[in-house]
């Protein structure tokens, strides 16, 4: 019997929803970590028991990272700060944006992408982390600038088979990748446009505002990216990118999700523009491509009818990795929707929550 666990990070805490078996009603648990902004949620499903992560920060009390080994019933926080900049950097952690377990090829390794721009790596399953100094000391660093959300490293894409290779995205610095375990990093933005720059400077080596990058484990060199205006695909692990925007109502948005079984099936939530961060068509619609971005279809069965004004943030859409695949997203209106069939139909899982910042899900047998 397959149980699904959905971890929801909001602006004022985290919740766990459970569906005990396919077709059953969702059971929404209590709000945990109240008054914490939970931008980063993660699920490490490599072990016998999944480990849930909630990166919680408070304007008053600072950022920290909780983990749960009982599917969110209880949360633990190490005594020593799990993610902290070394003294010699003089830098203070502002927020943990991304918690991402590495692939099976790197057991125990978990990455944290943070603000200000930096990557941390854990080798003990996400309890304690160390700064990846190769990226922190990158010569481009002084030229990275904050996006609207801050100077954040918000995306970590570990290579599914080669533990030495990791790709990250930061706003606004663009995509970077390492092939030597983090010692050295190269920008990987060729073909991604910075539309706001003068015409002769729109394809810089770095500085793009990439909002999310996603990959499929079966095709690790294939990447999909949702940019600050622009939707892209790479067939060479970021060496070059091609736009996949034909048929979209807008190229602006935040999330990018790949179907767990279908490497050509991807999901986004287009917004009208950076100056108008509302659903691109005025409706609550997920856009799905089933041919790697050549064409797109609006999905709205089961979603609210009529005008809809809430956006979906970069980590507020996910799959559960199962088969058939569940697709989930949360909105800034505090609603969470899920589809048990890859997006053909959606159902409301939760409403009246604080605005949703992140969701992660897993199917358990």
């Amino acid at each position: 019997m397959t149980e699904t666990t959905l971890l929801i990070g909001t602006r004022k805490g985290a919740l766990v929803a459970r569906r005990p078996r396919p077709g059953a009603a969702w059971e929404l648990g209590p709000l945990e970590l109240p008054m914490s902004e939970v931008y980063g949620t993660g699920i490490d499903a490599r072990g016998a028991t999944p480990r849930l992560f909630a990166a919680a920060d408070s304007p008053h009390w600072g950022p920290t990272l909780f983990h749960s080994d009982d599917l969110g019933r209880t949360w633990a926080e190490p005594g020593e700060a799990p993610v902290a900049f070394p003294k010699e950097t003089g830098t203070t952690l502002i927020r943990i944006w991304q918690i991402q377990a590495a692939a099976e090829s790197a057991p125990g390794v978990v990455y944290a992408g943070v603000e200000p721009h930096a990557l941390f790596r854990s080798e003990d399953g996400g309890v304690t982390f160390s700064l990846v100094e190769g990226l922190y000391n990158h010569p481009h660093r002084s030229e990275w600038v904050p996006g609207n959300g801050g100077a954040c490293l918000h995306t970590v894409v570990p290579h599914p088979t080669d533990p030495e290779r990791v790709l990250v995205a930061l706003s606004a610095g663009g995509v970077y990748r390492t092939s030597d375990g983090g010692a050295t990093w190269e920008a990987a933005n060729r073909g991604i446009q910075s539309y706001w720059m003068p015409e002769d400077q729109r394809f810089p080596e770095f500085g793009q505002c990439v909002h999310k990058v996603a990959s499929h484990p079966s095709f690790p060199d294939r990447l999909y990216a949702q940019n600050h205006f622009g939707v892209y695909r790479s067939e060479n692990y970021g060496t070059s990118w091609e736009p996949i925007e034909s048929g979209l109502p807008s190229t602006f948005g935040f999330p990018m999700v790949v179907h767990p079984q279908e490497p050509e099936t991807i999901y986004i939530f287009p917004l009208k523009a950076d100056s108008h961060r509302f659903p691109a068509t005025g409706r609550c619609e997920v856009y799905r491509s089933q041919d790697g971005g050549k064409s797109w279809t609006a999905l709205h069965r089961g979603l609210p009818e009529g005008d809809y004004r809430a956006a979906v943030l970069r980590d507020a859409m996910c799959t559960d990795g199962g088969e058939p695949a569940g697709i989930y997203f949360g909105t800034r209106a505090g609603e969470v929707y899920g589809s048990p069939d890859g997006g053909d139909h959606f159902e409301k899982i939760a409403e009246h929550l604080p605005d949703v910042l992140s969701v992660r899900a897993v199917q358990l047998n």
Partner: protein
Amino acid sequence: MTATLVLPTALREAAGGLPELEIAEGTVRSALDLLAGTMPLLERRVRDEQGRVRPHIRLYLGSSDIEDLQGLDTMVAAGSRLYVIPAVSGG
């Protein structure tokens, strides 16, 4: 002789539910350094990893903001009370 660290409600869970803690006389910095060893969860909600008091917090020694005294080098005398005061902010 000791002084008293007075905690806001939101920090009491990190202090084992206590509203007040005894701290040794000395500077504010030395008191917080000691706290980092005994109650690290509490200490890092007050100071960041660089030892700076978090920006939405003020520490008052009696009725005075330590920033108007000698900052973290302010001496905490025996019998005095050091208050952790969060900003009235948020929504």
